């Protein structure tokens, strides 16, 4: 068992039994469910919108090299810089070197999961730069020194009261009654100072538009606009899979992303950026850099079976609907991307042996498939991740023996019947001797959390032989 797998089990035991956590998450998810259901009603044909978004993303992925170079060319034409990073190290090195060369002391960041994935903030902090997360949720988890809990709502695991306590301890602001308006105001005071002192703003990208060379950013707090327009230097750090062919594609993608993510008709601030401040423009950065990160994405691209995973637009819908996520929460996974998409993405990009266990942390309920706005077949991806995990030899000896036995028994009805009979008799003996739940109990993994199954006197096939034709 990998270290990550043991850690997952350890945290899952704690979270599964944490009823306060369960209540908080259920409450948040049920209000999300209602908002999304209402949001979908605004579409004349939600299915058609999903199909359109899926087709657009698939077109981008199928012609990735073409659209990325088209995007790059447009950015360079307008005086921007494009850097291609094969991995996290190369991406961080570029940004760190740039910050050092421009004598940057303070960085403001808008929300970006790719920068979480490559641990950019800590790379900058290592050379003495102060990094401010400016998305409110990200700001809160940064103050707590923890990673985002969720890819869209990073602090959803915290109550108002916990946030008020945090602000008192870290910002010295005592907010009366944990009033949400005052909490936001307290954060704003700190963040405004950061915006006006930062020399560099770092953002992610929701989409890279090939035909117009634009970066599309969606935020609900306006922090994305401040991050990308006030500091002297703007650096976009994003994954190569974000590219879409045409500006007009956003007409479908923007509303679908917002509806799937939060139930909104469109994200409050939908921003398009196309380079540094041009002559005659009143705002915008002097320098504009785009870092295109691979970091395992071409592994998914190289395999026709997994290519569709790159269509993901990080809306969070599969996390929200996932009944496992609803029990264990985002931190239990130990990954940048939790929930169904993360349980596919992480093993494929960061190693099957270390992360393959996540593909099993799923009851195959298939709810995620129904909500994915770009129609990724998430349950199928989880199944083939499991298949490849086993095929690469990641199987415990007991499980291997179990399936060898299963294969042997199921090849013959007589053997199958005999094995079932022996199993029931053995279980009855174990129970009669009071050994339920001990190592001798073949059903102990079941009865650890459930009452024992009442054993029948005979199997159906035994019954059938005696009574079937009566």
């Amino acid at each position, binding site marked *: 068992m990998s270290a990550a797998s043991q850690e997952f*089990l350890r945290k*899952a*035991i704690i979270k*599964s039994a944490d009823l306060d956590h*369960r209540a908080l998450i*259920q409450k948040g998810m049920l209000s999300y469910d209602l908002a999304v259901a209402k949001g979908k009603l605004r579409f004349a044909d939600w299915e058609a919108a999903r199909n359109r978004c899926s087709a657009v993303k698939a077109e981008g992925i199928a012609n990735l090299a073409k659209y990325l170079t088209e995007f790059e060319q447009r950015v360079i034409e307008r005086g921007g810089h494009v850097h291609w990073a094969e991995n996290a190290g190369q991406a961080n090195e570029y940004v760190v070197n740039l910050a050092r060369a421009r004598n940057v002391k303070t960085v403001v960041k808008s929300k970006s999961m790719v920068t979480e994935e490559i641990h950019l903030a800590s790379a900058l902090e290592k050379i003495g730069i102060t990094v401010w997360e400016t998305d409110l949720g990200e700001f809160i988890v940064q103050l707590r020194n923890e990673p985002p809990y969720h890819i869209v709502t990073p602090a959803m695991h915290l109550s108002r009261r916990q946030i008020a306590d945090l602000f008192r301890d870290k910002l010295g602001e005592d907010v009366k009654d944990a009033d949400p308006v005052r909490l936001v105001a307290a954060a704003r005071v700190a963040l405004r100072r950061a915006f006006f002192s930062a020399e560099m703003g770092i953002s992610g990208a929701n989409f890279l538009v090939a035909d117009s060379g634009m970066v599309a950013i969606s935020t609900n707090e306006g922090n994305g606009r401040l991050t990308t327009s006030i500091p002297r230097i703007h650096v976009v750090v994003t994954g190569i899979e974000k590219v879409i062919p045409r500006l007009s594609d956003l007409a479908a993608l923007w509303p679908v992303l917002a509806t799937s993510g939060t139930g909104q008709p469109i994200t409050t601030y939908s921003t398009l950026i196309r380079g540094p401040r041009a002559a005659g423009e009143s705002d915008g950065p002097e320098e504009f850099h785009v870092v295109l990160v691979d970091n395992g994405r071409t592994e998914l691209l190289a395999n026709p079976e997994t290519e569709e995973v790159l269509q993901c637009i990080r809306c969070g819908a599969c996390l929200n609907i996932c*009944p*496992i996520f*609803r*029990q*264990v929460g985002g931190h239990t996974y130990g990954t940048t991307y939790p929930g169904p998409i993360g349980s596919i993405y992480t093993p494929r990009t960061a190693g099957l042996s270390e992360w393959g266990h996540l*593909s*099993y*942390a*799923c*009851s*195959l*309920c*298939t*709810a995620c*498939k*129904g909500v994915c706005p770009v129609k990724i077949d998430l349950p199928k991806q989880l*199944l083939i991740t*499991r*298949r*490849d995990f*086993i*095929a690469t030899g990641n*199987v415990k000896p007991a*499980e291997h023996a179990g*399936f*060898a036995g*299963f*294969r042997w*028994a*199921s*090849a013959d*009805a007589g053997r*199958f019947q005999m094995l*079932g009979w022996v*199993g*029931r008799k053995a279980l009855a003996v174990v129970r009669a001797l009071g050994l339920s739940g001990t190592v001798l109990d073949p059903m102990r*993994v*079941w*009865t*650890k*959390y*459930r*009452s*024992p*199954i*009442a*054993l*029948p006197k005979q*199997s*159906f*096939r035994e*019954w*059938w032989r005696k009574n*079937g034709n009566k």
Partner: protein
Amino acid sequence: MKRKVALFVPCFVDQVLPQVAIDTLTVLRRVGCDVVFPEDQTCCGQPGFNTGHWEAALPCAERFVRVFSGYDCIVCPSGSCTSMVRSHYPELLASSPLRQDAIDVGQRVFEFSEFLVRVAGVSDVGASFPHSVAYHPACHATRELGIYAEPMQLLRAVRHIDLRPLPNESECCGFGGMFSAKFGMISAAMGDTKAVNLEQSGAEFVTAIDPSCLMHLSGVFGATRRKLKTIYLAGILANTAAGAAAKGASR
């Protein structure tokens, strides 16, 4: 002429929950089917397929296709096992010489309630069940096979039944096959969440068209000392006399 039906009994139903198959048989015979049980059957292969052991699942699936290839109509008291055959065999048997036979057999295998309503055209089987009941829409039946209206139609036709709406009904109960063993703590927490919703519904019984969900829920109810009881759909439909004790009920 009586319709000939082959019973496909899931391996765990055969070995642990025989009453589910007996009740299924009772109802099928009552609506006029000539039921046979091909004794050569073992398992559809879902346990292996779902855990990544496709090498163990493949011979099971091929065996299933051979055993059932001679039957025009196959009925199964489980949405999940039906879906394994109909939805997943084409992928599992993609490079098997039996691939086309597997696709054909998938078109002839029906989940029990689906068979009654869509194939046999029956929604009132003459049952009576004087209890309050909530229906749990099992994941594979609902989302993979699109079966929801059929069991509801059958339940609505039952005399003296008090059907209760179940809050957040489409959320998984937490069984998930080997998931229930590999991640028992999460599985049980999901079952507990389902139990809370069931208690809110006020129903005495929870029913479903997947006995595996009910087997798991029954265990969770027992471990958390709840009064809720489980009963497979055919267990309700097999009851005829008003006030008769529910034979197929557990816990």
